[in-house]
């Protein structure tokens, strides 16, 4: 009983101090909202955005009737694909034109395009592109699909294989829906981790731990009160981020109880990890550096801002040893895929890591000196 009372009175003093500190509040609550606004704005309306592609049409006809102008029909078909938008240009040197317009993507429709098509002789379209760019695949795919369609039509063929587009979890997913779990993971990591690294090293330097050791509060109670506060803060920033996502970007968020374990164990893990870093380092400066070394890889490699599937294998392997990865994966499993079994495995892994880190932090953290 005494323990709970002491945790609560420490919680009261700490949270009041936190709320009086504008800097802490910014990082705890406002920063995650700014992140979601920025990322949401960058990726929102992704479905309507098309890639502009410069096209040189060298076709030489015949142009007697629109039916015979196959090149124009071909470009129209590309335009109606909704992935690319053709911008026809008149130029004598197409590659120079692309360079002058800082574009690596372009299409050349050759001379005799329509005549050769009607005569069923082979035609070769040139597609310029940078293979490392993500737009290149989309352009090549679109040109290839439209070419196949025209090839079929030329011989009066009909498509046999069709497909219907569908999605897992949501009826009509927005990019922001997939962004939210990662950004929640980010806020679960950043605020508790950086705060506890800072607090624990500063308290050690200023001998505040010594001061506290003279009162009946124990170090475990002290850490528990900090964890409690960061759970509250995480829940608050979660609700804020979700609200902004829904109101501003029309995000679909699956608010289920399955999220709670992640929102509770996550801050527990990173507050303990921050405490551990602050406690094993000599001074606040070293603690800050070590804290960054531990935090930064997780910030970017754990699937927070982009899925790890786009990363090379060795980075994916690194991601799998980062505790935040399992939190982000778990949040995705709950919020996007409804994969409860996967989420349970994730939460189990996170719980084991948390118990180890918490025990190490309490064990190594010293109130007094030998």
């Amino acid at each position, binding site marked *: 009983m*005494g323990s709970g*009372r*002491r945790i609560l*009175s*420490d919680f*009261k*003093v*700490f949270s*009041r*101090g*936190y709320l*009086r*500190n504008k800097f802490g509040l910014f990082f705890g609550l406002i920063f995650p909202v700014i992140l979601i606004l920025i990322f949401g704005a960058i990726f929102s309306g992704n479905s309507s955005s098309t890639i502009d592609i410069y096209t040189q049409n060298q076709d030489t006809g015949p142009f007697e009737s629109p039916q015979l102008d196959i090149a124009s029909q071909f470009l129209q078909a590309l335009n109606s694909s909704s992935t690319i938008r053709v911008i026809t240009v008149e130029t004598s040197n197409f590659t120079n034109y692309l360079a002058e317009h800082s574009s690596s993507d372009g299409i050349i429709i050759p001379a005799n395009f329509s005549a050769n098509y009607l005569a069923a002789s082979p035609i070769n379209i040139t597609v310029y592109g940078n293979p490392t760019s993500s737009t290149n695949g989309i352009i090549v795919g679109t040109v290839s699909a439209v070419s196949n369609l025209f090839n079929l039509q030329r011989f009066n063929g009909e498509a046999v294989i069709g497909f219907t587009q569908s999605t897992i979890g949501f009826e009509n997913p927005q990019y922001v829906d997939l962004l939210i779990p990662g950004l929640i993971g980010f806020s679960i990591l950043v605020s508790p981790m950086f705060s506890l690294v800072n607090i624990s090293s500063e308290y050690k330097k*200023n*001998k*505040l731990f*010594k*001061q506290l*050791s*003279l*009162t*009946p*509060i124990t170090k475990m109670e002290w850490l528990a009160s900090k964890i409690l506060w960061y759970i509250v803060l995480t829940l608050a920033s979660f609700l804020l981020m979700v609200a902004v996502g829904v109101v501003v970007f029309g995000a679909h968020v699956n608010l289920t109880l399955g999220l709670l374990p992640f929102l509770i164990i996550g801050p527990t893990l990173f507050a303990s990890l921050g405490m551990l870093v602050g406690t094993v380092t000599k001074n606040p400066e070293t603690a800050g550096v070590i804290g960054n070394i531990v935090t930064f890889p997780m910030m970017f490699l754990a699937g927070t801002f982009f899925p790890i599937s786009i990363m090379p294998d060795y980075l994916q392997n690194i991601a799998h040893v980062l505790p935040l990865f399992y939190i982000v994966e778990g949040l995705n499993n709950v919020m996007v895929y409804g994969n409860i079994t996967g989420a349970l495995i994730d939460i189990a892994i996170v719980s084991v890591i948390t118990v180890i880190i918490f025990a190490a932090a309490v064990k190594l953290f010293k109130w*007094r*000196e*030998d």
Partner: protein
Amino acid sequence: MKPIEVKNLQKTYGDLKAVDGISFVVNEGEVFGLLGPNGAGKTTTIEILEGLRERDGGEVKVLGCDPWKDGYSLHKKIGVIPQEFTFFEKTSPREAIVYYADLFNIKVDPDQILRDVLLEDSAKTLFDNLSGGQKQKTGLALSLVNSPDMLFLDEPTTGLDPNARRAIWEVIRSLKAKGKTIILTTHYLDEAEQLSDRVAIMNHGHIVAMGTTDEIISQHGSGERLEINGEEKLAEYIKANTELQVNYDTAKCVISIPLNKKIDALAALAAAEQSGLDWGEIQTRRDSLDDVFINLVSGEVDEQGEIVSEDAESQLSRKRRR
């Protein structure tokens, strides 16, 4: 049983003996001052007594407890201000008192405690915005929350301006008047002299003198002496014409004559008069605590507790101690 009993206390950091076998007791209701320059071992000693630091050897009993092993229960019975006291930046003194009372699970009147330490005007100011003196008073207030009978004050006025220092002294005197046992470390002689019933002077991990200030002065200082401003010729004349021991300080032009009996002064003055030489101011004086202290720690101590005018070897050894 005395409230504090220390026997042959030792503490080593690496190969450095910070506290080298000291022994003392503190009586109930007294203010006991540990006086010494920085690096003398005062804070190590007081932190061992508070249970904040583990000792390497010797016996220590504080209120009958071993402070390291029984620290958790001892801390409920003592009040402590650590050196350079700090607290949560965004918390006011009043909130801090309520917080401590909650932790100790006791009911207190925070405003009364604030009045006791003369801090009622800044009750709601955040710790960040308090002056140095107000911060120390907050520390004092917190050390009083659990109504301890014993207080440990580690350099409570270091770095404060004279007014703030005097205000803290006033609080300490009123606590003493309430019968509290107080252990105080300081490198200010006047502080030790003003507040302490008994003083232990520490240097290089040893206690080099202990007792009331009068006892220390009579044990370690010279006795009463007559001082006459005059020329060396006069000193020689007195020496030749009396049985007295005569010393001459050429720099200050002062003739100094130790007085075994008060009547010796008369003989000296008669000889001076007889000499027909000029002489100026006369006075009798004895060593102050200052003189004794400078003697014992082989140097004067500045505002920050550093020794000035000590020989190079002791300076080096003192630096190693920190």
